[in-house]
């Protein structure tokens, strides 16, 4: 298997916003190889001048696992090129079939790597924020195997972070409402994220450690979707309100 060649394929698909066939359609893609493809595709982004900004967790909620038919947590790498300014605008033509989901973001004050306890994970948090992730599978019809989605950087394509709050806010069960053009489209709680988003942060540290990386101070960790993802459409104004943490919004160009 040519890891570089597969990485180029998913990277090109992301760059050109063009859907591709599942990699696993040609040959089986075991999970370790899929993560190698992911690392190589992100290296291509860095080669074009993007910076690593953090990591995102995927399939941390039952709702997401059911929506996508996958039963295990995964992670992906965030880069500066994926950042969407709070209050900013995105254009659909940069994506294949983007969806948005409500998340919690953690900002690290000190590095985290390898297996950590929940108190250790909590102590490494500088701030928490409401956030939205724009996920966009590069595979046709948003359909994929576990290996496919991991190789495709776990569908990472954009993220938008709201105001940071001091980490003394308990994130265990924060209510949230995601609103399209003033109408609630998803209502939930951060408790859907593994029962507590901090568990997702600890899992992120373990994943990174196992991959031989650490989460440096200043890294952002997106803890995973709290509800199912909503498809984005042209012209829509998207806003997430989260109990105690405030709101974050962006607009899709019409």
């Amino acid at each position, binding site marked *: 298997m040519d890891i570089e060649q597969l990485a180029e394929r998913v990277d090109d698909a992301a760059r050109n916003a063009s859907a591709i066939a599942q990699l696993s359609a040609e040959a089986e893609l075991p999970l370790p190889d899929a993560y190698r493809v992911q690392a190589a595709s992100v290296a291509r982004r860095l080669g074009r001048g993007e910076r690593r900004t953090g990591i995102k967790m995927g399939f941390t909620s*039952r709702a997401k696992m059911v929506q996508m038919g996958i039963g295990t947590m995964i992670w992906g790498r965030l880069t500066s090129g994926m950042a969407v300014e709070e209050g900013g605008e995105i254009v659909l033509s940069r994506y294949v079939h983007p969806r948005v989901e409500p998340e919690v973001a953690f900002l690290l004050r000190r590095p985290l790597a390898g297996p950590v306890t929940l108190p250790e994970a909590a102590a490494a948090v500088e701030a928490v924020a409401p956030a939205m992730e724009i996920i966009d599978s590069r595979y046709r019809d948003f359909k994929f195997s576990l290996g496919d989605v991991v190789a495709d950087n776990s569908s990472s394509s954009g993220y938008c972070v709201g105001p940071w709050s001091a980490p003394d806010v308990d994130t265990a*069960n924060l*209510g*949230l409402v995601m609103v399209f053009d003033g109408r*609630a489209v998803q*209502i939930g*709680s951060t408790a*859907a994220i593994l*029962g507590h988003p901090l568990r997702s942060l600890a899992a992120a540290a373990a994943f990174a450690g196992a991959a031989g990386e650490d989460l440096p101070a200043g890294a952002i960790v997106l803890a995973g979707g709290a509800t199912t993802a909503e498809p984005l459409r042209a012209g829509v104004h998207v806003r997430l309100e989260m*109990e105690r943490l405030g709101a974050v919004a962006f607009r899709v160009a019409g």
Partner: protein
Amino acid sequence: MSVAAKISERLRQAEQAAVPIPPVRGDVAADDIAAAYAIQDCGTEAGLRAGRRLVGRKIGLTAKSVQRQLGVDQPDYGMLFADMELADGDEVPSGLLIAPRVEAEMAFLLGRDLDCPSPTMADVLRSVEAVMPAIEVVDSRIAGWDIRLVDTVADNASSGRFVLGGTARSIAGVDLRLAGMVMERQGEPVATGAGAACLGHPLIAVQWLARKMVEVGRPLVAGDLVMSGALGPVVPAGGGDWFEARINGLGSVRIAFARSA
């Protein structure tokens, strides 16, 4: 005996025997909401005559998704009697209910009568003395939960039991709309949501109820309890299940179901 009274009696017997019956929509027009409430009223009156104590109301169909499912655009209501209350942590005996489901809600305790014409949100705010986390155990006397609007309305809005938890709190300064909710079964989250899932804000549901109750001549009064409607998905309860619901800022509440014998 009127048709309404006969249907109401059928529902009562189904409840007592915990043996479901076919939908009532064969006996009343599927869109005759007034007839369905007339059946419910017969049940309420029969309960009062038998010495049951009316302690409040429940609001149902407060989730947009459930309204869509039933093709309706407004909630419904049912009566809460004192004998429907369970204690925090109680175990529901097997065979007591037909096909119980649980939903996490807010329960409001009223401190003033809401008997003025067309109560406003201000009237509601002045009336609510306290809020508590609650679990409603809904149940249907209609076999297989095969219900349309008239079936559930006639059947006391599919009410079963209710349990209150936590500490009664004032609503002053509590963000009831964004309060997070998680309900766990056997310690695993099975439903999450927030106050906004209930008609956009739980007190909007209470206001709807208050107006309705004035209209039908059974106004809410001081001491009444109001169950808001679900803050997240409803979950079927099986023998051996135990549930805990937590509402951010309000506390937690539990209910268990005995294993079938």
